[in-house]
């Protein structure tokens, strides 16, 4: 059965994929839908949804909430993807070394990983951003720093299980270098759990970014969903729409990514699916 057909057997994953596709489409066409700077004060402040030409209303300064959401989608997705890429790369590298070589390399790397794992990740992210000045780079770094340990442990486990398998021993015998065995032989065999974990990490990254921006630790020059919620929080009782719509956007996107991740898991590990 093809990968695609297996994926489609999971209905909710397909729904997730559709939602995600819409979000990506809106993000990609944000500059066409809303050519103005989303920070621009374009009209009557605190207009309810549907009034004064604002689909989702306007905030306290008269900025278009819908425009902010479209441009914010871009930022949220971008931060999610970049932070996850950084975290996965770091995690794979360290996990692979630890799992493949074992011994003291494993000990050292895993103790370091555990050190990171013992600190509650969101608090740690707040700390990192607070130490550096809040900017898009520091947010990405913070998310990556708190996310890589999970990947490292996962990859280590996979490498540990593979390194004594016959095909790896065969590679040793024909004189392949360690690096080549790791990259060309073992890594492709443990790619599917990494992809599944990575896809779910994008959702977590978006949540962390939103949380940071909500607390006022986001980049003040860049609009994101968390920023919109943070800015609208104080007026929740008089202008509910300012933080409600970006909140729904975060919820839908994170849900969609989780569903897609689940679908990927089913499609890539077909045997797991048979348990149900």
């Amino acid at each position: 059965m093809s990968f695609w057909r297996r994926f489609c057997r999971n209905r909710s994953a397909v729904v997730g994929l559709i939602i995600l596709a819409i979000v990506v489409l809106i993000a990609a066409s944000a500059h066409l839908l809303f050519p103005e700077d989303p920070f621009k004060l374009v009209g009557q402040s605190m207009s309810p949804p549907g009034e004064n030409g604002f689909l989702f209303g306007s905030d306290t300064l008269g900025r278009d909430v819908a425009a902010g959401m479209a441009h914010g989608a871009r930022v949220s997705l971008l931060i999610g993807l970049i932070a996850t890429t950084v975290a996965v790369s770091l995690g794979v590298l360290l996990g692979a070394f630890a799992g493949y070589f074992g011994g003291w390399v494993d000990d050292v790397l895993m103790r370091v990983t555990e050190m990171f794992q013992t600190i509650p990740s969101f608090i740690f992210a707040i700390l990192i951003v607070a130490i550096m000045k809040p900017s898009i780079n520091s947010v990405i770094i913070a998310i990556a720093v708190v996310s890589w340990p999970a990947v490292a442990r996962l990859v280590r486990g996979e490498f540990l299980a593979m390194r004594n398998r016959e095909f790896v021993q065969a590679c040793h015998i024909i004189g392949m270098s360690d690096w080549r065995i790791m990259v060309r032989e073992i890594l492709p065999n443990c790619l599917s759990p990494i992809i599944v974990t990575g896809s779910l990490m994008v959702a977590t990254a978006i949540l962390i970014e939103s949380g940071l921006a909500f607390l006022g630790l986001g980049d003040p020059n860049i609009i994101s969903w968390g920023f919109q919620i943070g800015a609208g929080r104080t007026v929740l009782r008089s202008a509910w729409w300012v933080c409600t719509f970006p909140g729904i956007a975060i919820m839908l996107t994170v849900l969609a990514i989780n569903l897609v991740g689940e679908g990927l898991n089913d499609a890539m590990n077909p045997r797991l699916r048979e348990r149900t």
Partner: protein
Amino acid sequence: MRSRLYSRPERPTSIVVKRALSSVCLAVGLIASTQALSQTAGGTMVMIAQPEPPSLAPYLSTSGPIGLVAPKIYNGLLDYDLDLNTVPELAESYTVSDDGLTVTFALREGVKWHDGEPFTSADVQFSIMDVLKQFHPRGPNSFREVSSIDTPDELTAVFNLDAPAPYMMRAFSAYESPIVPRHLLEGEDIRASDLANNPVGTGPFKFVEWKKGQYIRLDKNEDYWKEGLPLLDRIVARIIPDASTRTAAMESGEVHYGAFGAIPNIDVVRMRESDDIGVTTDGYAMINPMALIEMNTTKAPFDNPVMRQAISMAIDRQFLIDNIWFGYGKPATSAMTSNFEPLGLYSATPEFYPESPDVDAANALLDEAGITADAEGTRASAVVDLIPYGEDWRRAGEYMKQALADIGVDLELRYEDVPTWLKRIYADYDFELNVNYFYQLPDPVIGVQRHYGTDQIRQGTPFVNSTRYSNSDIDELLAAGAIEVDPTARGEIYAQIQAILGEELPVVNLFEMEFLTVYNEKLKDHTVSAMGAYHSFDRAYIEE
């Protein structure tokens, strides 16, 4: 749960009896004064202290939350009514000599400290010379001309000055210059004294307990020197860190009083419709907060006054007030607040403080000065720092970024934590524009001079001249204004100062801020002085 304990004003049975009695009295048409008494005396007032005070040592720190609590415990020599006239407190009267070099205070008789010791002129001498002039943040400035204080008898204190200091007469409130007990502080390390946590004053309320993170409790001083006062039996200052919890506590009647924006403006807009809750902007005349932009006059293009003028002209001050501060505030029209008008010191400089923004004129000014735009319409790029005191200032920054884009100034916003920000602006001078607010205080010598004087370029001291603006004309005028005793002449000097600063604009004032006091309508006579929340509350009462 604990909060409930303090939420309900305690009503001792005697009050109930008095109330019952009073209705009887009324019914039979007897003495009306009994009724007045029964309405007013007794009860517990719950106020919000936000944030928690670092100590209760008003002689060491001017921190706002200390000011909410300490003036209930300590007295000053004078108080100031809502029109800034002096009112006697520990001093029954004072006289200033014709040359302005001697100020004699006649002190009140029979005043006792909370521990029973008598209050004398020696306490005044010690408080001013050994405590406030040495350790208070603004004391060295307020009392800089005071060379000595003579105490010919126990109830007379004579201040000897090196030069006239008219501004000093506005610095004698319980908040600004509390009179502290000499017998408890003399010979002690003033900064380390336990008095900071167990204050002993002469004021209407005695300190009882401080549960850190929860509340501070003060009880009525039965031996208070004002006959029949205070009216309240108890004041509880509750510490409630979360803004929406404070709003909820005010709405439910759990707390009676919250000042200095303890209740966010947006909630006030909704709450002021309620019959049970009142809002006032009175009681801040001694503080005069001004929102402003400090401009680094050593960095291009902000070293050019034309650039600063253009920025001042492009900003819609009313927009900031309406949309971010929800209508509370007044557009700035000069380097000084219009609240100095009753003192005769204020004069408007409308040229670069237009009533509504004039983007075209601002652009024309810049073109004329040769500050031209590149292909993308950008004349200058700059980072603007925002005072890290809350969301409102971020919104203000976001507005400014949009507004200044119209005159080709491309802003990047920077928002850091308080220590980093203070260091950047006042120690490293590593900034271009800084959005901030300053207290202009009751007199320009105390609140305005620190912005502009060359001698106020004090690297490392926060909230002084960060723009490094230096103009010998201004320095001379400031020095002359500080010692001029004649009000008319003084007004003329400050008019000249404002005219120069209105053109040079090292600091562009945005708007005169209005802090809000929100109170339960049952609480009466809480804002009776220019000190507002920093007053003793000896006349406040709760009407049942």
